[in-house]
């Protein structure tokens, strides 16, 4: 045995000596370990030495994925991340949600440079993944401006506040020292549709003391894809990607002053004009249909979305070593809905064909003071946060909600119009104790008070123990919460049919109260994770982490209460209020989420100066509804709703990423497996098989400045399974929509692209 130890020591020494004797340029080409700031208040921590599970996706990796949208890029890299592309689901067609570990889109917190970013004003109210939630629109951020994306796979509401239940995504914008870059991208689907063109420019202007002013502009145009059948109709509806134009602007600035203080700011702006359709209205849809459309019509829903955020902050360190950071982040999202090629049957031949449907707005302003100081073996951090939120609904054209509704999307009625605000403040403390190089303990607590639902106190404990030079054992336990969004509390969209009202009602609406609604309270969570990272060599790392999250009082949009599915007492209440059917938000269910992440990374450098980077990442996430609040009230416990939470998203995901570089050529091959999922239609569960997808990207560097990329996403043109059996005109083997809207990789088939990038 001694002989083997001597041998290994000798080899280690040789390798060390080799490192020291290598050329200067080789040293400068060495890459440091990926590190992330998210999950710790003590600065950047290497992913292989982090006591909580973190992942980092770099700009360089994203560049070789061929993706131009953040939501797609994360799907490409991150196992357990889901971002379906739905269609014929009103607003949900235009703003993609994303989830971690099969949980809800609003149970993940998104930060930009460590600051909370606002969610979209969109509340998903159709039968899609994420029904009843509002999420952050990741696609507002131009990818060329991103340095890296940090993902914390751990509950962290005790550190960051509301929403950090399934994890935290921290988007780090490029800072000092990055090359300026201009790029062009174009691509098309295998079925000769879905053309995409985008152009972007990133310009970095250095300032004194490593300050910078970075400007980014990106413009893109996405043509629709069409995978719908005609079904029983003369014309098909639209199923596939929407037609969309995007303009993205980003300014990221840091000015470092002579006296060491640093003033930083960023402005992110996105304008999107997106168009998708509702279901086709055949000529016999209504006696009035043929008055304007003899062959029927396909209503087109148009969303014009403005999204902006502005962060301004100043940070410094006092002579006693206290780091302080004062900042303000203002975020705003506005969705203006329009409808064309439609009509309101109630208006007959005089009906408009186009409608202004109304506006949704969400504004969020966060002011933060963060403090941090080291005291020997302790690093203490603390801070305060004040947040103001405002949610608005503006009504649409009168013709979109009177005498019936505008077909395809009912306009917002003046009764739905809202302008609601709330405030909250938070205090947090975070202590990191490192008594030795092998042991790390992190304790965090956060008190938060909202002026609508009250207060919450949460805590987190994380432990890391380096059992050997190569093995880190880690565990964390935390409580968390998610505040009900203003949209969940105040959204309503109601229409009148035959003198009776139906739709989504506010929680505090008279009819909701009569049916038993109560003011929404925060979702409460408990989370623990236990795992290990084994790094046998400088080139290999293997991590395994088990996680368990229990969420109490998850907020959901209830079923439609009324008609045959309702109790006689409920129908009597509805009738007494002149309502036909009603739904409202409610703290409906308790859920369990548990599973495992297994991740292996390896880098191999070969004698011919080529290198291979490989990652295999497997995720298993099982979601279960374990109890219902007041199940007899038929609120949210229908088979469809429960099934969507438990089986609507894949339980399993696998990513096998390989990037081989030789000289001027880099070949990137990603093989993904999306696990099976299910969707319920008319009370029956339909299963969809797991699928393998393959993405390939080949890049060639013509010079130090110019790169060409060609590649294919979904190279083998894989589609999800179609529905099995006949269901109705819209779904099933003969229906308009061949595929489930839950498909985790969409249903637009292969995409072939080419890109040019020029650095200057």
């Amino acid at each position, binding site marked *: 045995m001694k002989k083997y130890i001597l041998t290994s020591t000798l080899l280690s020494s040789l*390798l060390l000596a080799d490192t020291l004797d290598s050329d200067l340029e080789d*040293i*400068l080409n060495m890459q440091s*370990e990926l590190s992330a700031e998210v999950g710790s208040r003590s600065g950047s921590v290497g992913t292989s030495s982090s006591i909580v599970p973190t992942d980092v996706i770099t700009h360089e990796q994203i560049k070789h994925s061929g993706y131009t949208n953040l939501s797609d890029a994360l799907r490409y890299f991150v196992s357990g991340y889901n971002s379906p592309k739905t269609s014929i689901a009103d607003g949900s067609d235009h703003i993609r949600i994303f989830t971690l570990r099969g949980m809800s889109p609003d149970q993940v917190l998104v930060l930009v440079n460590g600051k909370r970013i606002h969610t979209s004003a969109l509340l998903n109210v159709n039968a899609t993944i994420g029904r009843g939630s509002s999420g952050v629109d990741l696609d507002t951020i131009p990818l060329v401006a991103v340095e890296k994306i940090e993902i914390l796979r751990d509950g962290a509401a005790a550190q960051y506040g509301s929403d950090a239940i399934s994890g935290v995504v921290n988007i780090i914008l490029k800072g000092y020292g*990055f090359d300026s870059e201009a790029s062009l991208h174009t691509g098309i689907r295998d079925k000769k549709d879905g053309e995409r063109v985008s152009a972007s420019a990133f310009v970095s202007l250095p300032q004194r003391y490593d300050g910078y002013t970075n400007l980014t502009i990106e413009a893109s145009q996405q043509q629709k894809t069409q995978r719908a059948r005609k079904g029983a109709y003369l014309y098909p509806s639209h199923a596939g990607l929407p037609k969309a134009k995007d303009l993205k602007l980003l300014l990221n600035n840091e000015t470092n002053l002579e006296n060491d203080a*640093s003033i930083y700011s960023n402005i992110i702006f996105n304008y999107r004009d997106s168009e998708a359709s509702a279901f086709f209205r055949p000529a016999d849809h209504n006696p009035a249909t043929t008055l304007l459309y003899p062959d029927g019509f396909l209503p087109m829903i148009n969303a014009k979305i403005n999204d902006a955020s502005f962060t301004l902050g100043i940070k410094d360190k006092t*002579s006693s070593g206290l780091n302080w950071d004062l900042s303000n982040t203002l975020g705003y999202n506005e969705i203006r809905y329009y409808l064309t090629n439609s009509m309101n049957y109630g208006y007959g031949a005089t009906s408009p064909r186009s409608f202004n449907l109304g506006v949704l707005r969400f504004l969020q302003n966060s002011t933060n003071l963060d403090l941090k100081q080291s005291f020997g073996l302790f690093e203490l951090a603390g801070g305060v946060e004040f947040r103001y939120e405002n949610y608005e609904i503006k009504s649409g054209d009168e013709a979109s909600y009177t005498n019936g509704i505008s077909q395809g999307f009912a306009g917002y009625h003046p009764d739905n119009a809202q302008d609601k605000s709330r405030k909250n403040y938070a205090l947090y403390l975070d202590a990191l104790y490192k008594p030795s190089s092998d042991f790390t303990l992190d304790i965090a607590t956060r008190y938060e008070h909202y002026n609508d639902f009250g207060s919450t106190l949460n805590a987190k404990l994380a432990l890391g123990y380096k059992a050997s030079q190569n093995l880190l054992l880690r565990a964390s336990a935390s409580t968390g919460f998610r505040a009900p969004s203003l949209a969940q509390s105040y959204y309503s969209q109601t229409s009148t049919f035959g003198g009776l009202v139906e739709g989504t009602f506010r929680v505090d609406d008279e009819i909701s109260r009569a049916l038993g609604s109560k003011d929404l309270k925060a979702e409460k969570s408990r989370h623990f994770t236990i795992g290990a990272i084994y790094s*046998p060599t*400088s080139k290999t790392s293997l991590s395994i982490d088990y996680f368990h999250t229990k969420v109490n009082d998850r907020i959901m949009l209830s079923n439609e209460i009324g008609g045959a599915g309702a109790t006689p007492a409920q129908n009597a209440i509805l009738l007494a209020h002149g309502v036909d059917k009603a739904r409202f938000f409610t703290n409906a269910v308790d859920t369990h989420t548990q599973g495992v992440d297994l991740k292996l990374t390896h880098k191999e450098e070969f004698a011919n100066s080529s290198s291979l980077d490989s990652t295999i990442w497997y995720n298993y996430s099982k979601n279960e509804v374990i109890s219902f609040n007041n199940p007899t009230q038929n609120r949210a416990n229908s088979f469809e709703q429960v099934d969507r939470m438990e089986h609507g998203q894949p339980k399993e995901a696998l990513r096998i990423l390989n990037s081989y570089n030789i000289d001027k050529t880099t070949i990137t091959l990603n093989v993904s497996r999306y696990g099976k999922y299910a969707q319920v239609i008319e009370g029956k569960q339909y299963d969809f098989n797991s699928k393998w997808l393959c993405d390939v990207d080949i890049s060639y560097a013509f010079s130090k400045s110019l790169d060409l990329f060609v590649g294919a996403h979904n190279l083998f043109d894989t589609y999800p399974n179609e529905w099995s059996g006949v269901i109705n005109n819209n779904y099933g083997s003969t229906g308009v929509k061949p595929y489930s809207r839950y498909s985790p990789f969409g249903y637009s088939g292969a995409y072939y692209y080419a890109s040019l990038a020029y650095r200057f």
Partner: protein
Amino acid sequence: MFARVLIVLFVLFTSLNAYQSEKEIQAQVIGKISKFITWQDETKETFVITILKNQFGSAFDDTYKDAKIKGKKVVINYIQDPSQIKECNVLIIPALSSSELKLILEKAKEAKALTISDQKGFAEKSGIVQISFVAQKVKLKINLDSAKDANLQINSSLLQIAEVIKGS
């Protein structure tokens, strides 16, 4: 036989360092760039690296335990107070306030030391070599006037791969 191979592989794997952190890379880079720098007095038997308020853990000890710089044994001095700065080849300086930095750079000049830091703006504030990381890769910024003030000669091949600034 198979078991022996496994044992050798296991011992080999477990004896190597894990992924290199920025601190570990900085420790290595400092040794490497020293080869491209000429000090006024190179007759001493040892190469002395002084680290003020150590932020590197054991990275320097681990790197230079059995290694040499310019053919000399490497001595690592850890100090807490600027008053402890004595003649050395390299002085590693942590992030400090501008006023503290100014005082320390004056002392470093007396110590005829190559000053190195990863502090933002270090080179522009009269430090000699600034090491920073951009997208996980090392970037060097060298203040040539400060090097001249310390009677240090920097090889042109090092300057070629660094951003060179003059003055303060």
